[in-house]
């Protein structure tokens, strides 16, 4: 009996050891199971296989998190008083809540929100989802036990051993998955640079991000390295494009194939928006059989432009030109975020008299 015991223990130990190894070995997507080291949750974008990409500014990293969510039929989703209700669920006041970004789960069509609760030293990042369950519209999406992988975003272009803690940060203004890559637009708190990056997914063990120098050209042809505030990858007439909105407000189109590291790539300015405004969201969808892009603006009304004009339209070179045709939509007003929801709808966050509302809008009305 005493002889048998050590064998049993060894077997158990071996089994545990093997199980542990299996547990931490990355799967085919490079993911392991556990809790990602989330410092903040900002920009969101879904990729294939229920993977949510999240920009983590405070951690200078991108997380790829597999979030299965039961398939749903979609359909309109509404929640008035979104900020008040998010605050209630998180045990705080609406003024203590910031809704950073929104993305729609491709299978369940639930609306995912990255939220920061608190504004000071106690600030915490939370991932929530809004469902069509009227009794319990808001649920937490726990990240305690998920399949994930993380890619660091390199900080500080020079290695300076004389510097103390590096005060330089990158704020990720937008991210998207397309053609096997996660595309990341960022803005530094120090030098004025157009840090538009790309990292292949699945993330390699030490993922390499390539930085792309993109320039935009104004109608008198002067150029700057300007940070991108929002962009959307899309296919127009069989070609891959990145359509981007800038801190300096032009809308610029890039041939995605031409975006190679180390190359100085010039985009075509296809539209110029006016002063006092930043494009904050670009959403592409099909409306009555035509591909369109909706531009959500920080102050100007919603604008709709045709994808075919983006591909085929002339580059802005004349001083008086505004660029391609755009339709300003005075209604709905006060839109701060927009995402493609299902075949018929987009979902928006709209600022009203009493705070924020989550609403669905029929595409054909936009």
């Amino acid at each position: 009996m005493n002889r048998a015991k050590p064998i049993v223990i060894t077997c158990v130990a071996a089994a545990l050891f093997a199980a542990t190894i299996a547990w931490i070995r990355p799967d085919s997507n490079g993911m392991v199971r556990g809790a990602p080291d989330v410092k903040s949750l900002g920009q969101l974008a879904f990729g294939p296989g229920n993977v949510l990409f999240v920009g983590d500014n405070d951690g200078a990293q991108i997380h790829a998190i597999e979030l299965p969510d039961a398939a749903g039929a979609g359909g309109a989703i509404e929640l008035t008083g979104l900020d008040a209700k998010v605050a209630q669920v998180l045990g705080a006041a609406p003024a203590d809540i910031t809704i950073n970004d929104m993305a729609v789960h491709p299978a369940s069509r639930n609306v995912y929100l990255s939220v920061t609760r608190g504004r000071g030293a106690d600030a915490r990042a939370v991932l929530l989802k809004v469902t069509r369950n009227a009794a319990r519209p808001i649920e937490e999406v726990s990240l305690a036990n998920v399949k994930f992988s993380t890619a660091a975003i390199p900080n500080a272009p020079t290695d300076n051993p004389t510097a103390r803690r590096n005060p330089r940060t990158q704020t990720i203004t937008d991210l998207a998955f397309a053609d096997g890559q996660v595309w990341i637009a960022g803005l530094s708190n120090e030098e004025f640079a157009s840090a538009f990056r790309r990292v292949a997914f699945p993330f390699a063990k030490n993922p390499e991000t390539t930085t792309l120098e993109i320039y935009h050209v104004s109608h008198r042809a002067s150029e700057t390295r300007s940070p991108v505030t929002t962009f959307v990858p899309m296919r127009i007439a069989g070609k891959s494009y990145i359509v981007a909105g800038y801190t300096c407000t032009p809308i610029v189109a890039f041939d995605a194939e031409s975006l190679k590291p180390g190359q100085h790539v010039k985009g075509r300015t296809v539209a110029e928006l006016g002063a006092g405004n930043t494009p904050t969201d670009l959403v592409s969808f099909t409306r009555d059989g035509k591909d369109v892009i909706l531009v959500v603006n920080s102050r100007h009304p919603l604008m709709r432009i045709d994808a075919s004009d983006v591909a085929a339209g002339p580059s802005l070179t004349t001083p008086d030109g505004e660029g391609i045709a755009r339709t300003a939509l005075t209604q709905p007003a006060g839109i701060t975020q927009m995402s493609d929801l299902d075949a018929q709808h987009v979902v928006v966050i709209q600022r009203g008299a009493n705070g924020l509302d989550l609403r669905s809008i029929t595409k054909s009305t936009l």
Partner: protein
Amino acid sequence: MFGVLACTPDTNGPARPVVIAFHTSRTADAFGAADARPVDPGALAELARSQPDLAAWQGIFAVYVGDTTSLPMLGHYQVVHDTLRFIPQFPPQPGTTYAARFHGAALYDRIGRRAPSLGRAHATWHSVADTTPGSTVVLAAYPTSDVLPQNLLRIYVQFSAPMSRGDSFRRVRLYADNDSLVEDAFFTAGEAVELWDPDNTRLTLLFDPGRIKRDLRPNEEAGLPLQQGRAYRLVIDSLWLDGNGRSLARGFEKRFRVGPLDRAIPRTATWTVTPPPAGTRDPIVLTFPEPLDRALLSRMLTVRIANGESVAGEVSVAKLEREWSFRPHAAWSADSHYVEVDADLEDLAGNSLQKLFDVAPGDSGALGVTTATVRIGFVPRSR
């Protein structure tokens, strides 16, 4: 007989009413948790065994912000003998009222037993706001000079301690000399972007590049935020809360005048180099004809010896950001050294060693060095 009946667990006799108590001490375990007790331990144990989901727990016992018409708060549940405890996901916010509600009937419904007359329980608690006076202040705003170029690109505001986020949009104001507010001077992406350092002690105010850059509609329609020849005040409101939720000890104001546009590339050939004596730890000093960017000066200049190895030491910036100095940790050898300057180093208008902030075609003055770094050689002088 009555005595014996009174001892059985599943009694219909008079039971002690359930009372809800909050954990209100900031230093206690589970600050903000709520306890409902006493509840029959057997019933609680069965409830726990039935593995309620969050919605089921919330139907029995829930805590709310404000009152019970709110959505219930996220948290988890513990059964501790005769106590049902709710632990909120997040600690209580100061200055907030919380309400808790317990439904005895819902508990017994779930486990399929007949409820004793436990009825309902309700309690509220107000988490007191912190009124301690704050001690955080603005230490400085850079650039330090009180004469700034019309196409100034950035201002850094340095605080003495971490600040709260999301409030800069209404706590920072720029006034022109007639006390008129300069609207939309800074880039905020619709009040969604704040550019803090990782400690939340330094905020970068980025002037709207669309208004500064030539040939864009914002520049043509609204013009540059600053006008040459005028005086301005950058005002920081003391109501801004720091990271502990306390107001600043005092506000801050930076007054400055605006000079001409700066469309000149900074060139290292215009800098003066003062080599230090060999065998000392005196600093090497570089001075510039114009102020350069405070943050970039801290990290974009590195002292190296001939083989490229960096020298350890401390960087200082002085004289209105027109002087950079470096004091080594070990005494200087008499060997050749160089200061390696990253060509992305910018002046106050965002012009780097490589190119102007905005480059018009045919603008021969717009381009500087083509290398990633510039070396400034020096040899510590013999005494």
